[in-house]
């Protein structure tokens, strides 16, 4: 039985269709994925992302614990700052991607595992704590916090309307804010490429905060097309420790790996970086008619198999099909001509730099 967010009844009353995702029953579409996508690109929309996990780490060694756990430099975070990071195993294989927040109090670190991964990541934190004998407390707060993303060029104006305060957050900053008398955390992060913020609201107050933003609700369908246009990774699909074991370098997020920090997987990743990658995740644009989908084979023009698609869709903004694919590195250059086999038929495609849109 999938879990429900505190906004489930609101979505059902609003006519959402639902899908199972990471153990949660989530709205995939309200009226139209394309219309929802367009709201976010052109104006603003809101998403219920309460399925995302939350893990809070406190205590004298909280920063050290997260430094061991994640690939980025946690020590560089001032209070009220956040950073994108990977969590890797000893072999440098990505277990998770996440955002690590240092809360405004400076004492608490909070990170956001993907849906359904919070238990595994909390267990991993506990393991790191005992392995390195750290003085820290780890608490899973997934169902303490509802998470609402307000995204789009008009999101800052929505914040100002809801709080009466000026919106001063820069990207990857987090502060406290009061929305409709509810104390929230608001972070200038997101998964769409647009301006906007993500709110952490107390689980029981979620509907009050949700209703404070009179903007179109958007589902996971639009969330997926928006993130794909930006070339952002989807955990469990573009990387997965079992189905798609990849290093951050292969997955195209080497920029979150700081080899000067002491994280689990560091030595393996240093070796991987020196050796170079055989396959790289890159953008693909289909030139023929059709739609790229997870699992499609990528070939060279002569038919030799050189990779496969991990995510694909029809881009609502561009009107062409786009995707992400792991491709042999010698082909992973923008404008390289490749083919993608769709229902046994090779179709013309080209490699694209990501993001597909300039933002």
């Amino acid at each position: 039985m999938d879990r429900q967010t505190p906004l489930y009844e609101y979505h059902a009353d609003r006519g959402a269709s639902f899908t199972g995702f990471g153990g949660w029953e989530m709205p995939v579409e309200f009226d139209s994925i394309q219309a929802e996508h367009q709201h976010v690109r052109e104006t603003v929309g809101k998403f219920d992302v309460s399925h995302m996990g939350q893990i809070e780490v406190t205590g004298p060694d909280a920063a050290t614990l997260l430094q061991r756990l994640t690939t980025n430099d946690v020590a560089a975070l001032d209070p009220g700052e956040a950073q994108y990071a990977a969590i890797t195993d000893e072999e440098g294989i990505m277990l998770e991607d996440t955002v690590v927040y240092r809360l405004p109090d400076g004492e608490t670190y909070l990170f956001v595992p993907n849906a359904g991964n919070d238990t595994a990541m909390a267990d991993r934190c506990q393991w790191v704590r005992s392995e390195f004998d750290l003085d820290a407390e780890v608490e899973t707060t997934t169902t303490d916090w509802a998470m609402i993303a307000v995204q789009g060029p008009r999101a800052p104006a929505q914040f100002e309307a809801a709080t009466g305060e000026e919106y001063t957050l820069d990207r990857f900053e987090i502060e406290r804010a009061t929305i409709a008398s509810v104390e929230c955390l608001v972070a200038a992060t997101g998964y769409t490429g647009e301006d906007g913020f993500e709110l952490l609201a107390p689980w029981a107050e979620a509907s009050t905060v949700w209703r404070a933003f009179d903007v179109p609700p958007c589902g996971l369908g639009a969330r997926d097309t928006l993130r794909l246009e930006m070339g952002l990774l989807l955990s469990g699909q573009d990387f997965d420790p079992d189905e798609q074991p990849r290093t951050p370098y292969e997955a195209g997020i080497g920029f979150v790996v700081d080899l000067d920090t002491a994280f689990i997987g560091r030595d393996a990743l240093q070796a991987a970086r020196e050796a170079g990658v055989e396959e790289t995740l890159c953008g693909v644009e289909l030139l023929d008619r059709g739609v790229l989908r997870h699992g499609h084979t990528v070939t060279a023009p002569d038919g030799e198999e050189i990779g496969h698609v991990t995510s694909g869709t029809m881009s609502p903004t561009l009107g062409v099909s786009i995707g992400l694919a792991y491709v042999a590195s010698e082909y992973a250059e923008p404008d390289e001509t490749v083919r993608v086999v769709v229902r046994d038929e090779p179709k013309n495609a080209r490699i694209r730099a990501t993001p597909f849109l300039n933002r």
Partner: protein
Amino acid sequence: MSFDIPAEFRYLDSHEWIDVTGDTARVGISDVAQDELGDVVFVELPAEGDQFDAGAEFAVVESIKAVSDVYTPVTGEVTAVNEALLDRPELINEEPYGDGWLVELELTDTDELDELLSPEAYAEKVES
């Protein structure tokens, strides 16, 4: 949610409709099917002259979130395809029983029509 199910057509469990005039027929997907799929973004159609047995896959309709095979309700030869869909696949959402039709077929065996669902039987399937 109530769906449009025209009384003059017949249907398959898999949500195709067929509109028969003499020994030719138009085929498409139902209002239920288009609603389930959401925004249709791509359609793959057969060529004129292709032959299909009843129940065979003859087209593919893709929305952003799903890929759906379409099955022919009857045996026959394709005599026309709706080329307007190549540029405007959204016609399937807008008018599933009108401008969103997929193909026209020349029927081989009109007895096969007796195997198809009546509008009432299809409506019952949809409700259950």
